[in-house]
């Protein structure tokens, strides 16, 4: 079985993002870049499959500039078999449909049985590329997936629902967008890291790809600074409770 995992490189969740002076982008200086967390869960899902079925091939792909290679190497270190970078001038500026088109052309060549993406990227939270890729390939799409399991003539796909799971079955190619699951993405072994360092990462040109819809960021704003909060000190607990209820109802308007 062959997996294609589509990943995006984003500012690491430990990084404090600052809006750049132009008001439409973020400061990239001093930012640590890593694989978007849901994409890491997608990788983990495929690697778990590989742990049980040795003939599994896990390919990973990303669209972006030269530093995107670090994200691909991280995926290789975790245990993915090969990586492809779609790059070139304008790779970073590609819109969601453009990215989906880039992934589609690679997918047609690599012929995966399943394509996995994170359910959304942690930077812009659009959750668009996976669904768009399914549409472009003409494949079915299952969202918020937490588990896959081989079954006779296809794959069982567990989709999270409110308080439970739906189990789907796919008999052919499908695009799955992956949710956080109980199994944390694995930490790479050192032999894995060393092997990943030496691996060739082939590149595909971004040039000539269709990017039909251009979205433009008009303005970025940091969230408003948090207020000081209120601390009740010295006094009657009962009175606090009444006061607290009043404030929650009238001021915070959460009751």
């Amino acid at each position, binding site marked *: 079985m062959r997996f294609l995992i589509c990943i995006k490189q984003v500012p*690491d969740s*430990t*990084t404090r993002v600052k809006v750049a002076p132009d008001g439409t982008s973020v400061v990239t200086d*001093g930012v640590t870049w*890593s694989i978007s967390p849901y994409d890491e869960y997608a990788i983990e899902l495929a690697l778990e499959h590989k742990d049980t079925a040795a003939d599994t091939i896990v390919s990973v792909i990303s669209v972006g500039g030269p530093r995107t290679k670090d994200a691909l190497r991280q995926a290789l270190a975790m245990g993915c078999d090969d990586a492809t970078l779609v790059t070139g001038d304008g790779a970073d500026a590609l819109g969601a449909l453009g990215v989906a088109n880039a992934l589609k052309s690679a997918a047609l060549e690599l012929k995966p049985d399943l394509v996995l993406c994170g359910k959304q990227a942690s930077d812009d939270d659009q959750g668009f590329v996976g669904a768009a890729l399914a549409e472009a390939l003409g494949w079915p799409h299952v969202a918020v997936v937490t588990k896959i399991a081989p079954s006779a003539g296809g794959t069982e796909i567990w989709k999270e629902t409110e308080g439970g799971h739906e189990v789907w079955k796919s008999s052919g190619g499908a695009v799955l967008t992956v949710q956080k699951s109980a199994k944390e993405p694995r*930490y790479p*072994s*050192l*032999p894995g*890291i060393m092997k990943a360092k030496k691996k060739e990462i082939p590149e595909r040109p971004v040039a000539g790809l269709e990017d039909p819809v251009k979205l433009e960021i008009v303005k970025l704003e940091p969230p408003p600074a948090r207020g000081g909060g209120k601390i009740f000190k010295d006094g009657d607990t009962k009175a606090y409770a009444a006061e607290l209820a009043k404030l929650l109802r009238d001021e915070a308007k959460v009751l």
Partner: protein
Amino acid sequence: MPPTTGIGVYILLAVALLGFGAFAYRSWKLYRYLRLGWNEDRTQHLGKRLRDELVIYLLQRKLFKRPYLIRGLAHAFIFWGFLVITLGTTDLLTAGLAGLRMPGAESAFFVWAVDVFAALVLVSILLALVRRAFFKPPRMHIALDGYVILGLIAALMASLLVFENAGLAAGYLALHQAPPPLAQLLPLPYPAGYAASVFAAAWWVHVVTVLGFTAYLPQSKHLHIVTTLPNVFFRSQRPRGALRFVDKIEEQETFGAATLRDLSWKQHLDGYTCTECGRCSDNCPALATGKPLDPQKIVLDLRDLLLKEGDLLLKDPAATGTPPAHQLATKPEELWSCTTCAACVEQCPVTIEHIDKIVDLRRYLTMQEAAAPPEAQKAMTNIERAGNPWGEAASARGDWAEGLGVPTFAENPDAEYLYFVGCAASFDRRNQRVAKALATILQAAGTSFAILATEETCNGDPARRMGNEYLWQLQAQQNIETFARYKVRKIIASCPHCFNTIANEYPQLGGNYEVVHALQLVQDLIEQKKVTLGAGPAETVAYHDPCYLGRHNGIYEDPRAVLDAIDGVTRMEIEPHHRERGFCCGAGGGRMWMEEKVGQRVNHRRVEQILDAGNARGAQPAKVASGCPFCLIMLDEGVGAKGIAEQLKPVDVLELVAARLDHSRVSKEQPTT
């Protein structure tokens, strides 16, 4: 007058050949097993090694640790007796075989010494037998082996005394100026003519027992009487707090102890030397709180695996055998329970290196198999990405110092000291107060210092102790490069883990600095009157020894001296778990970031010990002071869980000092601001 004439010599020769032959055969086998280990160089520091041999081996220094003094003395008498009697035995054999006497063998002193020590050994052996049979020490591993050995030694001593005594009766020894003083006190109950036969019989019993003992020795744990000599000689001369460096790590093919070949020959010698005394286990905080770790068992499991698979590995150079970390008996959970507190290493009378083994096995699990516990993996990912194990924003590292007038090195490149703040004091709110306290003290003393703020990154200690040598090297190199950029020479650390790894481990990567722990520096500043402390209320403060300050670096006195210098403070020792027997808070060895679900939490036990010590002295302390951010976090959690946070306040000694700073005498010139 050995009773070996005629055929007797040949019988003795045959028995001696059998005894020594069996010894040699087994020893050669054990030696070849041992050499399956990799060839670690342990020949440097000859002077220190000879000194260890004198102090630890000959003077038995490590046997007299506090709780084991009486037992230690009993052992020492057996040991010293053995040394003397071995000389006597050698003399007996050479005399019996070739009629050669050792020079001085007939001197009054030697005869006296053999006789007196034989009696001392006999008494000690009887005590040891009684103790084993009726007062079994809690964690001592009682097996038949121990009884066999004690029985053999008792037989040796008894037969020695009998043949001396019968020798006197038969008139053999009467020729000497000085007969054996104790043997001659015994009655001489032999009818005329029998004394010679008793003498001959006892002599033969003695000699045959000696040779039987020799043959049995390498099959038993009693082998330590042979292996302790080299085991002490070749013990690690690294600072105790430094783990073994893996050179050219990127060129290795496997990492950590994947097979028995990946443990060094010295690790295997440790296994042969273990006497199964159980002192390591007795002092292990993990074992004491119901974790699956038993340090003695780790040592013995590795030895048993070597004895079991040694032949297989010798026969086939390509064979790997069972990975030691997977050995049926040694489960990964055992390895992950270790806090690297060094209580085992501190106590081991024969200098076994428990932590090195545990870390080598962890290295295999973490780097080779990527099988560290998930929380440990998360902490390592955080160190990689954010430069701290909690995953706090790297850009916020210097935020604690805002508005305090603490310069960064970028602002004041000429500062004398670098204050290496560490992750805990940079990001943990409770510990930020400790960093602020130190900054205030240094400013008051007029000490020139600066911090690195966002240019600082985790020193790597948690990663290294979780078995991730590679990540430790990356972190260390990054810091060393930053230090070099600012030409840093002197470093202050308020965290014993930062202190230990920078002082003892960075030299492995070429980073050599003058490193002090904050409490050492503050002690100096108080002594030099650069810091003066005002009056304060009377209160009792218990001192908790952080493992990486105390046992790993021998810093017991400075923190105590600082506490003693604070007006009104009465220092309390957490007896008996203080100084070198200090009990870990549970956070070391990367345990800070791992869940602790099995048994009692180590920090809860520690709080109970403080309360017990308070009860024993009839008054509870108001505070428990430490010098380590992780101890502080753990103690805070401990008193919280016990619901006594109001009665027993965990603090850092630095906070107590900062609160008493006599600001009226603060120097007006502050080069740091």
